């Protein structure tokens, strides 16, 4: 009875995996092929959500929560804000692909073929099945993060500060800049 329960659990997680990976790949393709750029931002959110479900399947609950918080909560919203501020052809079907589409398709297909060959011939080792993974609690995770990885944590905080200051410096509207752009426009005219 117990064995049967375990077996049905494995089958369920496999079915979940297949469905989620199909959604993931479909929405990833839509991210790069949607005609409307705002739609592709929303498809990006779907892709990130599917990645978070993958993390749960891999027994990394904390990272799934972080993925939803940071990526869907911050990154997608930031991208939508940038789309709003740049006001480029929202809702219009523009010519989105560049001249090197065929070349890019060949490169990415070759890359995937090479990856498949590598997966095929390499013995990865490790556990046999996802059901054998043991969950590492958030408490243990935090203990390791703030003891063994304390220095990288501090460095990451400095990096975030630098990114904050840098993006403010880059995005702030400079009056002198505006004058230069006006002058350039006048020169052109």
């Amino acid at each position, binding site marked *: 009875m117990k064995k049967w329960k375990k077996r049905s659990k494995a089958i369920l997680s496999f079915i979940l995996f297949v469905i989620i990976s199909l959604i993931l790949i479909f929405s990833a393709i839509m991210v790069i092929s949607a005609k409307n750029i705002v739609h592709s931002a929303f498809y990006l959110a779907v892709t990130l959500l599917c990645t978070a479900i*993958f993390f749960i399947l891999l027994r990394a609950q904390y990272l799934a929560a972080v993925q939803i918080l940071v990526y869907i909560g911050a*990154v997608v919203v930031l991208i939508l804000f940038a789309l709003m501020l740049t006001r480029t052809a929202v809702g219009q079907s523009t010519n989105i692909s560049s001249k090197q589409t065929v070349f890019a398709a060949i490169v990415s297909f070759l890359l995937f073929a090479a990856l498949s060959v590598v997966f095929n011939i390499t013995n990865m080792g490790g556990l046999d099945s996802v059901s054998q993974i043991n969950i590492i609690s958030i408490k243990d*995770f935090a203990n390791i993060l703030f003891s063994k990885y304390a220095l990288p944590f501090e460095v990451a905080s400095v990096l975030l500060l630098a990114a904050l200051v840098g993006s403010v410096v880059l995005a702030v509207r400079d009056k002198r*800049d505006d004058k230069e752009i006006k002058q350039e426009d006048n020169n052109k005219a």
Partner: protein
Amino acid sequence: MVIGMQWQLGIDLKLVHFLVVSGVLFCIGIFGVLSRRHLVQILMSIELILNAVLINLIAFSSFTTPDEVIGQMFAVFVIVVAAAEVGVGLAIILSVYRRKKSVDIDNINILKW
């Protein structure tokens, strides 16, 4: 090592399943970076690539070192760097847009001479 042993895809979820999906995601991202013209769309493709890498890191962490969290720690720092990258990247896109009035990558050739 017999070729094709890894492809015995049974009902059990194995490491190779996750690797194949993340490989597909990575290649879609590469295709997007190389072929799209909108700057923001290129940034989104980079996000796809980073997510493929994250799946890889966590899959290897869970399957090969189940008692430690090395890969998961690395994934946390990848997420931090990705957030910083998006912030700075979008600021650069805004500033380029202000100067060139366009986010089409074919029109941006300031660094070209």
